[in-house]
């Protein structure tokens, strides 16, 4: 059929350069505005403060709940962040250009990289606030869990973002999908930051990344078709 399908399975030469061009463009657009990514950070800050108030004044309870609270906020923030994949591009009529110039696999990598960076900043902001306000602590394993777990969350959210743009209706229902898809990251990421032996949880996150990445690689090209 058309030439588009030719780029589905293999990544062409210059892939990293193209990914870098796309990521740089998305970063500039995100940093230049007050909506989108910038609106997520106040949401996370409010979530940490309100979460602390709900949990009560017991420092031990706050310290125990802090990592899970941050992961929950990151997962929730993934829903509005998914707009950067395709919906924002489509609204501004730039989506067709990307589909015409960038093979699906490269587009997936670039958008997942943008989302990973946005989610990492979101996790970092939430964690700093949790340390300051909830007396939380972040062991090295907690950082490793974030770096690993957010890969799978970014891959799932990229698929969700493409699905969101492809479906004019049912966006609310689709939003309910991204949260269960991130459940392994929520559970393993929280446990890796608090358990005495984090290695099994980190291994679980690697497995989650592989499954989420392979699924995204398989379905993303089909979500671009009309």
């Amino acid at each position: 059929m058309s030439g588009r399908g030719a780029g589905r399975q293999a990544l062409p030469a210059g892939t990293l350069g193209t990914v870098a061009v796309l990521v740089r463009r998305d970063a500039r657009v995100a940093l230049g505005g007050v909506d989108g990514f910038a609106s997520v950070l106040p949401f996370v800050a409010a979530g940490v403060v309100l979460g602390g108030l709900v949990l009560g004044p017991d420092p031990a309870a706050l310290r125990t709940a802090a990592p899970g609270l941050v992961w929950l906020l990151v997962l929730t923030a993934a829903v509005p962040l998914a707009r950067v994949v395709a919906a924002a591009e489509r609204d501004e009529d730039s989506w067709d250009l990307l589909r015409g110039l960038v093979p699906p696999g490269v587009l997936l990598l670039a958008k997942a990289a943008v989302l990973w960076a946005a989610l990492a900043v979101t996790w970092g902001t939430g964690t700093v606030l949790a340390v300051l306000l909830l007396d939380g602590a972040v062991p090295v394993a907690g950082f490793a869990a974030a770096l690993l777990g957010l890969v799978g969350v970014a891959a799932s959210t990229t698929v969700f973002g493409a699905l969101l743009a492809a479906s004019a209706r049912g966006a609310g229902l689709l939003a309910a999908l991204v949260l269960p898809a991130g459940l392994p990251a929520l559970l393993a990421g929280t446990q890796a930051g608090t358990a005495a032996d984090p290695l099994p949880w980190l291994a679980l996150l690697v497995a989650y990344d592989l499954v989420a990445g392979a699924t995204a690689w398989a379905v993303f090209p089909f979500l671009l078709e009309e």
Partner: protein
Amino acid sequence: MTESSPGGAGPPALSLHEVACRYGGRTVLAPLTLRLAPGAVCVVGGANGAGKTTLLRIAAGLVEPTSGSRSATGRALYLRPGAGTRRRQRAVEAVAFAGALAGRPEPAASAAAALASCGLPEELWHREAGRLSAGQHARVTLAVARVVAPAVVCLDEPMEHLDAEGRAAVRRTVAALAGEGAAVLVAGSEVARHLGAADARLELTAGTVTVLG
């Protein structure tokens, strides 16, 4: 089935073979065979809803036809006026971005040349695309087409929002793209009147194509 092969007997830049499109049982585009040679310009006319956009999006590879096949020798672009940029990108950055994705060795210099050729005043090059007028934004889209230099260009209603000077810029851009070897499909209800010479003219009526010349 309608068939048209303008622009010479060599290998076509764009080949549509009996492509048809149906949405929900309704025929949006009746079977059409079209071969465009490199450098050929084809004007597609028709009323709103006649199927022009569907034809162009199939030609650009964005829409899979319900039946038939499509092939192109290289990149294909589908552009509406104002498309191809993010609102917060500066005009010159948006064109350079497209050039970088297309593999231009010096995208910034190519972007400047493309914007100049499309008649966007230099003082607007560093303005955010979202703060340009519709006509100015449409010229940025033309510059995107120039800088990418695709094998197939599908311009949908490119004369929209444009004054006489802007329409002249469209004519220059179409001629330049064709001169560089691109097969150019231009659709619009008023395009034929404003564009002048073309290698083929198609008229769409409720999804059925008539070859006018």
